[in-house]
């Protein structure tokens, strides 16, 4: 084996990780570096050293415009004694394929080294596989080694977010750097050449250095490409022809394809291998490096290139590779300019990609088919456009999708295809909602229903009704959402269209909960969860949970909301349903905030914005972050709430505008800007009144009242806010306490008598609510009260662990030796809630047991000073 220079440290890193893996905790190793830096050589050297004590599985991604879905997994399956290959070839559901691979990594006796190379070129399904395995790797006995060109993974590259979201403790990064001048000299000495100028030109890139040293030329070629071509120019004519063909075939050169296109010529092959242009890799020919293949490929004239692709295409078609690798056929067909072959194979490749969940590749193949679809009938063309649109929506290319759908719609109109036209309009409305173009979505949905109602009943009509119900629910038009939803269910049941039935139950349920018919809504949503679970509609199950969490949250029913979010987030995490997960995470941030767990609120909200979340998730997370900062008196309130407003304004819906405007009104109030408070609250108040949304009306009315704009509460305002506006501060504070909202409770008490204000001050201090505490302090001073605690109370100062007021209370009772059930009855809370507080306390104090927590609390003085903690009323 060739000795690698200056890679001892990286190899040692690899070895120590494998040592850990062998004890039963799997890990991911990321090997990054520019092209030619020696990533493959390093991994090969490492795996060679462990041939006897580990099982090595190897897959690679190819630099194709549209790579084969799960290409690397095909390679890997071929090296395993398992039914994985059968599953892949029978297009089994992806969850089963991924699950089988994971099990395979768990049961093996020896540790497995699973290599996936060049993941910067990975197709979407392979990226999902990496995410799936990477997030679960700790539960396996495997080392997942991923190599990638770090300089080709920009901030928007899909690989970036996936690597960033692997569990922190399970990842080791190896970054390969260039060879030193000394190493280059050593290599030159071995090649019996002068090292002069080589390091300067190559920058110490090992592949470039090797090419230069092999080019046996006097000077140093200026680029890798020149070095490769100089070397190739020394080949015999036969070998060069064969090399050109090989470059067109691919990085790995299938020998049967080579024989079929370039003829069998063992001498030429020998020459290519001995000259180091190609190498044997597991019995197959391959280029020494993708950089070398690119150099050869780019040197081909357009005419030659086309002729070579034609030859490869013909060979592939004769061998009926179209069935197994339609994407490969479509690629060569396009390069060969064969429109008929593209039209035939690109859609097949696209559907295969869809089945594997490689939506980016599917959209690219459909788009390729559309570019070459001159011979299609207009209806075939429209069908392709709709396929392309569906995939584009899944990869968030909504603009392209809407354009394609409109084009297809014009064809359906011209052809008099009414049902297809109606379905198309309904799909357009759904895409338009995703793009935040709600007014156009509305128009499109109405027209779709009109068209479909002009025909005999269809499942398409049922679907159109369910989408209208969904849009009414989003807009908080409860009665209409229910009407349309019930119509959808009635019709969908005639056609046994489960998906529409689930959608309708979910929309109806969310509408009911939000409008205050909580129990009926809960039943409808839970029915949605049940039906979707039975039918295996994973994304709809997650959607129903996120609707449950957000709808209960919107009604300040945080205990229920929290429970649904917990279940829903666990469900979404298990299935990598990230968009649903992020929306629920944003809502959990809000729930934490209202329940007084501010540090957790900040963590969740920031986690949403760190991970590329959709606009609606970002809006809710920014509202949580903006309110949190405003309540703490922290900076950067404006940046969070300005961004939230910008995103919410695009949606033009109450559901987003009301929380953002209310948060901005609160922030303005805390900053002492009453004019701005009035302005912000006014901006969404009429909209909330029109939709009769009691909680939004309640909070917005409250801020208008604070700003002196309103003297009486609207009849529909939610109770705690109404009580506050009516001056019934004690009843309001009780109501807030029942809802588990300590900040709101303190705010109500702040309007009370001196005793109440003292309690309010203590609660605010416990939360770390500086501006509100300062307001109460000012009010107490104005009433001539002298012994007001000055500045942050001792309780916060000696409470570096950031325990909430309630947690301090529970901790102090723990210190008295009470059991959870006793604490629960003492505080009028459920035992479950106490359990939750106790675990939060343990986590914050980094204690392993209750006794340890109590000891730590005594040591740091938390307990003795919190005896007087508020809330025991």
């Amino acid at each position, binding site marked *: 084996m060739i000795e690698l220079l200056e890679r001892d440290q990286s190899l040692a890193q690899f070895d120590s990780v494998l040592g850990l893996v062998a004890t039963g905790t799997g890990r991911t190793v990321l090997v990054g570096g520019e092209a030619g830096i020696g990533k493959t050589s390093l991994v090969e050297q490492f795996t060679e050293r462990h041939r006897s004590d580990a099982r090595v599985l190897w897959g690679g991604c190819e630099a194709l415009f549209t790579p084969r879905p799960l290409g690397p997994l095909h390679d890997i399956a071929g090296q395993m004694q398992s039914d994985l290959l059968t599953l892949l070839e029978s297009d089994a559901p992806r969850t089963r394929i991924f699950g089988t691979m994971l099990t395979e990594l768990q049961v093996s006796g020896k540790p497995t080294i699973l290599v996936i190379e060049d993941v910067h070129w990975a197709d979407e399904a392979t990226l999902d596989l990496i995410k799936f395995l990477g997030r679960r790797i700790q539960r396996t006995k495997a080392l997942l080694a991923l190599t990638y060109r770090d300089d080709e993974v920009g901030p928007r590259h899909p690989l970036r977010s996936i690597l960033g979201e692997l569990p922190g403790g399970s990842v080791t990064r190896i970054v390969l750097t260039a060879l030193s001048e000394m190493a280059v000299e050593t290599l030159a000495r071995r090649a019996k050449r002068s090292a002069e100028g080589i390091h300067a030109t190559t920058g110490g890139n090992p592949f470039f250095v090797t090419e230069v040293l092999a080019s046996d030329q006097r000077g140093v070629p200026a680029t890798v490409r020149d070095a490769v071509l100089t070397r190739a120019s020394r080949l015999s004519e036969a070998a060069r022809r064969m090399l050109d063909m090989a470059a067109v075939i691919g990085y790995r050169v299938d020998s049967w394809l080579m024989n079929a296109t370039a003829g069998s010529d063992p001498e030429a092959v020998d020459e290519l291998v001995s000259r180091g242009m190609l190498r044997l890799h597991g019995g197959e020919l391959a280029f020494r490096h993708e950089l070398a293949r690119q150099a050869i490929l780019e040197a081909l004239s357009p005419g030659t290139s086309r002729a070579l692709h034609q030859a490869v295409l013909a060979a592939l078609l004769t061998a009926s590779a179209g069935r197994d690798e339609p994407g490969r056929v479509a690629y060569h067909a396009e390069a060969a300019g064969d429109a008929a072959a593209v039209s035939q194979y690109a859609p097949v490749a696209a559907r295969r990609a869809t089945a594997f969940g490689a939506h980016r590749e599917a959209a690219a193949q459909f788009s390729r088919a559309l570019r070459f679809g001159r011979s299609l009938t207009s209806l075939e063309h429209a069908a392709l456009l709709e396929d392309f649109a569906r995939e584009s929506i899944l990869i968030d290319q909504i603009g392209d999708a809407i354009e394609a759908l409109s084009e297809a719609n014009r064809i359906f109109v011209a052809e008099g295809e009414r049902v297809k036209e109606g379905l198309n309009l309904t799909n357009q409305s759904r895409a338009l909602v995703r793009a935040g173009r709600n007014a156009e979505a509305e128009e499109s949905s109405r027209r779709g229903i009109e068209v479909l109602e002009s025909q005999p009943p269809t499942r398409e009509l049922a679907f159109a009704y369910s989408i209208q119900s969904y849009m009414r629910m989003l807009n908080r038009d409860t009665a209409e959402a229910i009407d349309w939803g019930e119509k959808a269910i009635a019709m969908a049941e005639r056609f046994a269209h489960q998906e529409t039935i689930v959608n309708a139950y979910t929309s109806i349920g969310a509408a009911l909960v939000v409008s205050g018919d909580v129990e009926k809504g809960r039943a409808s949503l839970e029915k949605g969860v049940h039906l979707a679970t039975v039918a295996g509609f994973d994304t709809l199950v997650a959607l129903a949970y996120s609707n449950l969490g957000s709808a209960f949250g919107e009604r300040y029913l945080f205990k229920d909301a929290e429970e649904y979010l917990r279940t829903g987030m666990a469900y979404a995490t298990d299935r990598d349903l990230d968009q649903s997960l992020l929306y629920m995470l944003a809502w959990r941030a809000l729930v934490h905030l209202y329940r007084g767990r501010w*540090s957790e609120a*900040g*963590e969740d909200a*920031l986690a949403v914005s760190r991970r590329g979340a959709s606009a609606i998730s970002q809006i809710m997370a920014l509202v949580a*972050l903006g309110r*949190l*900062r405003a309540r*703490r*008196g*922290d*900076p*950067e309130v404006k940046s969070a709430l300005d961004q939230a407003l910008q995103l919410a304004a695009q949606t033009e819906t109450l559901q987003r505008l009301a929380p953002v405007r209310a948060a901005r009104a609160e922030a303005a109030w805390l900053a002492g800007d009453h004019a701005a408070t009035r302005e912000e609250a006014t901006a969404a108040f009429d909209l909330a009144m029109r939709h009769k949304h009691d909680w939004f009306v309640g909070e917005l009315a409250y801020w208008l009242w604070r700003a002196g704009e309103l003297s009486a509460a609207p009849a529909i305002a939610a109770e705690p806010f109404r009580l506050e506006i009516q001056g019934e501060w004690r009843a309001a504070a009780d109501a807030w306490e029942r809802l588990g909202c300590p900040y709101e409770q303190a705010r109500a008490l702040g309007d009370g008598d001196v005793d109440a204000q003292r309690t309010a001050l203590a609660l605010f201090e416990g939360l*770390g609510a*500086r501006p509100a505490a300062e307001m109460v302090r000012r009010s107490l001073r104005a009433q001539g009260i002298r012994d007001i605690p000055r*500045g*942050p109370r*001792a309780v*916060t*100062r000696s409470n*570096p*662990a*950031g325990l909430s007021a309630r947690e301090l209370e529970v901790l102090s009772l723990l210190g008295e030796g009470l059991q959870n059930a006793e604490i629960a009855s003492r505080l009028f809370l459920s035992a479950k809630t106490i359990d939750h507080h106790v675990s939060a306390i343990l986590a914050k104090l980094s204690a392993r047991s209750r006794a340890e927590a109590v000891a730590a609390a005594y040591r*740091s003085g938390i307990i003795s000073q919190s005896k007087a903690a508020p809330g025991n009323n």
Partner: protein
Amino acid sequence: MPRYLVERTFPDGLVIPPTEQGAAACRTVVGNNAEELVTWVHSYVTPDKLRTFCVYDGPSPEAIRKAARRNGLPVDQIIEVSVLDPYFYR
């Protein structure tokens, strides 16, 4: 990365002895900060050692608070600031 001024109050006074023990305490703070991508630039301390004004660089106010929690340091107020140099305008 934004810069913040963090006000803290130490009821018993903040005493960092100029010994190896004091140096180790500062290193611990710096290490904990690094976990949150927070950098402690320097601090001003009142003569009675009851209050400090600490200059920090960090990604967000939440990161500043989390680092403080890890270090067991109190936080009264966080203010976002930028540098103004009186001699810049000559």
